[in-house]
């Protein structure tokens, strides 16, 4: 192991770099802002690579730990570390940030520096969330990441952006403030410690456990989002600029799910077992009902947004199966969904930049004018519907197996997603891409340029690699997942 504070670098390189980009000021310096943002994003990714190469897959302990006192008055520490559950998300996040910067290269012409800076700062804050081991530090990053996303949706978003931005902010704020009370309660019960690892060992009676679980459920459930508190997501997605949608889908939704693994399951395992039926029911509703909702969408972004909710329902379902297949499957699904949904939004962004419409009805026959694009879009649509050999299949299959182990009928209901997912994804693809050229706007479309080709190709490679050979991903999480399940199986009463 090295002495370089890699996690701090992963957090602060993008944030400080973002401030630097912000300092380039007005749009006169836009080219400089773009180049600088790209450099920072790449640097931010480079510093996370040693996290993977230097990661010890044999242990479930926290690695790359950094511990300094921050606010001694409340015993709040700057405590960072990653294990198998979180390390991949740090990498994924840093990676997606590069794509987001590339995706906004030409489209964003207004307040370029602020746009790029917002994404870079958010990327740093999200790395902070995934690596924080102190309750307040986690909370601080969790909340602070709302600010850039609020601005991104509100400034560069679509027509109804203000409503979407405020709805997004208030929904998530309510959840997280309830979590804050739970954190304060745990602080008190543990005799003045905000360390998440201490809380994992803290015995708690059942009633507080249930209340804490519910507070966490609201906080993380809103973020995931779970049915019925998902309604902010379609609005936010539809109104956000492409980069915002990508970050929302690929990273922000993972924060909630990650919260379940880091907080809900290990801190209040008994409540998690008792309330598992509730979470499973909500997850199944998300999988099936939201799947049907996705089917009837006329707006492509909304369709993908609903499909995200449905996929995330799969993730929460996997967690509450309490078996290795379920949890690992859910984690794989999270990573895969990060690639696939990010790619889907980028594809829609490619179309939107040309046509300024997201309505499925405005398209048709795109394959005739944009063959290269159609090929990529095909791959990602297949991945979204969980076709074998794409990353989408691995996670879904593992979760379904885990669910069948737990209870056949739950597995059965969950498996309907394979049909529903295929139905809404492929039907949309058919209407948009195939058929005759629908109108003269489609006839004038130009195929993707080199920059667009680059980021779609990178994502396509990731999707295929993960689908064909998921071992490098599962290997990393294996030890931590087993340890987590061992821990959750022991009662804390």
């Amino acid at each position, binding site marked *: 192991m090295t002495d370089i504070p890699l996690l701090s670098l992963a957090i602060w390189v993008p944030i400080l770099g973002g401030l630097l980009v912000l300092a380039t000021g007005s749009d006169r310096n836009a080219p400089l802002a773009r180049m600088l943002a790209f450099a920072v994003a790449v640097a931010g990714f480079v510093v996370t690579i040693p996290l993977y190469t230097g990661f010890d897959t044999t242990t479930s302990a926290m690695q790359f730990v950094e511990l300094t006192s921050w606010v*001694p008055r409340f015993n709040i520490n700057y405590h960072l570390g990653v294990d198998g559950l979180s390390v991949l998300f740090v990498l994924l996040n840093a990676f997606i940030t590069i794509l987001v910067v590339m995706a906004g290269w030409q489209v964003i012409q207004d307040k370029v520096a602020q746009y790029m800076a917002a994404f870079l700062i958010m990327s740093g804050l999200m790395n902070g969330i995934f690596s924080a081991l102190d309750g307040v530090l986690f909370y601080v990053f969790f909340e602070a990441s709302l600010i850039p996303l609020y601005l991104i949706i509100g400034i560069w978003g679509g027509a109804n952006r203000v409503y979407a931005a405020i709805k997004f902010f208030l929904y998530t704020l309510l959840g997280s403030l309830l979590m804050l009370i739970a954190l*304060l*309660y745990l602080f008190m019960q543990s005799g003045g410690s905000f360390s998440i690892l201490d809380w994992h060992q803290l015995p708690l009676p059942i009633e507080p456990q249930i209340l804490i679980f519910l507070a966490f459920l609201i906080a993380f459930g809103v973020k995931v989002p779970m049915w019925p508190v998902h309604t902010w997501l379609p609005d936010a997605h539809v109104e956000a600029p492409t980069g915002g949608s990508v970050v929302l889908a690929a990273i922000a939704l993972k924060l909630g799910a990650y919260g379940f693994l880091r907080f809900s399951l290990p801190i209040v395992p008994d409540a998690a077992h008792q309330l598992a039926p509730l979470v499973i029911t909500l997850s199944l509703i998300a999988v099936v009902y939201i799947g049907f909702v996705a089917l009837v969408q006329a707006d492509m972004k909304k369709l993908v947004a609903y499909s995200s909710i449905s996929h995330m329902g799969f993730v929460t379902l996997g967690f509450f199966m309490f078996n290795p297949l379920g949890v690992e499957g859910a984690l794989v699904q999270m990573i895969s969904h990060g690639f696939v949904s990010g790619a889907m939004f980028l594809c829609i962004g490619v179309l939107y930049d040309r046509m300024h419409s997201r309505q499925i009805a405005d398209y048709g026959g795109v394959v005739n004018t944009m063959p290269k694009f159609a090929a990529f879009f095909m791959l990602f649509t297949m991945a979204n519907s969980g076709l074998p050999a794409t990353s989408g299949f691995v996670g879904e299959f593992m979760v379904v197996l885990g669910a069948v182990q737990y209870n056949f009928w739950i597995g059965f209901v969950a498996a309907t997603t394979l049909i529903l997912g295929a139905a809404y994804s492929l039907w949309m693809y058919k209407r948009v891409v195939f058929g005759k050229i629908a109108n003269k706007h489609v006839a004038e479309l130009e195929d993707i340029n080199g920059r667009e080709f680059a980021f779609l190709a990178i994502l396509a490679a990731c999707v295929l690699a993960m689908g064909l050979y998921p071992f490098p991903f599962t290997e990393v999480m294996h030890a931590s997942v087993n340890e987590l399940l061992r821990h959750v199986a022991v009662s804390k009463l």
Partner: protein
Amino acid sequence: MNFVVPDFYPAAAEIFVAVMALVIMLASTFARSIARNLSYFLTQATLIGAAFITIYTMEGEVVHTFNNLFISDLMGDFLKLMIYFSTAIALLYGRGYLADRKIDKPEYYLLALLMTLGMMVMVTANHMLPMYIGLEMMSLALYTMVAFDRDSARSTEAAMKYFVLGALASGLLLYGMSMVYGATGTLEFSAIAQAIYNQSANQTVLMFGLVFLVAGICFKLGVVPFHMWVPDVYQGAPTAVTLVIATAPKLAAFAMAVRLLIWALFDIAEEWQLMLMLVAAASIVLGNLAAIAQQNIKRMLAYSGISHMGFVLLGLLAGVVEGDRHFALNAYSSAMFYAVSYVIMSLASFGMVILLSRAGFEAENLDDFKGLNKRSSWYALMMLFVMFSMAGVPFFIGFFAKLSVLQAVVAAGYFWLAVLAVVMSVIGAFYYLRVVKLMYFDEPVDASPISAPAEVRVMLSANGIAIAALGLAPQMLMSVCAYALLGSL
């Protein structure tokens, strides 16, 4: 009774300010041509000088003088320093504003100095009498300052309202003091505490007195149900004066609450905690809900101030739980930290209103903030800091203020109160977000450049950065608050 020459040393700062006030009065009478600048700079110099004297005469222990009428302790010294600091900044922000409206008379600075002196007396009072005198001194100066733009009907109306309601509150307070005197036979705080401890006080009379005292304190803090003056006065007063009212006097009122409730009446804490609980809950609910409906930013900040003061009370009411007092230091220092944080945020928020105003134009509607990001992205960023800080979003000081108060409330076991405060904070976040929305998402309606003087710009930037910097490193201010109270409890 023998006359003993009292020890003047602990009161050196008060004496200095009083003397300087007279000097400024005389100087501005005789040097008419330069009176404006002279009185401004002399006032600022006095505040700085007083700060040096306070630091120099600071002693680690509690010192009484003037027959126990006066007390010098760390809490008092710290609050006094914060009062000089916020008054000095408020005067700095307001100077250009007053000059643009041709009301920057030398008397204005004189009144500000007398107000400061009143607050200093309140902070260092160890007896009902100086407490009351200090309060009146502060209030009378403030009433006059509100009416300073005497040709403005709205200002004079606000001043009248403030005066009538303020006088009523003073009356209530005085009545309460007289009852406490009736019950305990003394006006000195430590002697009152002793009398209550010995159970020699008449409980019925004492409780009546307590109710009136709490009412008086609540009026000065501006919390429900004694908040009616707050929005009208904030809106009606010239913005420079609103800035003064919304900052230092809150600290003085906090000091009054600490001296009266904690020093004198600590043994009946559970009685007044119950009252504060209702008041705090009502303030947080009403302040946040009413702020949503406001179109005028000064009124909006007034209602937001009501809810912030509710949060301060949350800290004060969490000190004693079923007779157990070991939460007290934690709770009261959280409340103090909140009050100080609020003052820092409040300075910046009204400072922004002043920044956008210019001769003949009051930037007091929310719409005046539209498109600020296009006009000046730097000040939009500063206002963004202030708004998110007030909403309690982290990496800003407001978050740690809320965290420490909520922590105290949870430690005391009042979960329902914490949940209520949190839910109302979410509702409150809406109107702060709306300001950010106006600045960042909307197009400007007024494209004129920002014309504030350089010192205001520099100070406001420093103020905004301080909000973020203290949010990144809150420990120092927190420990200062805890340390200042440690010696006094």
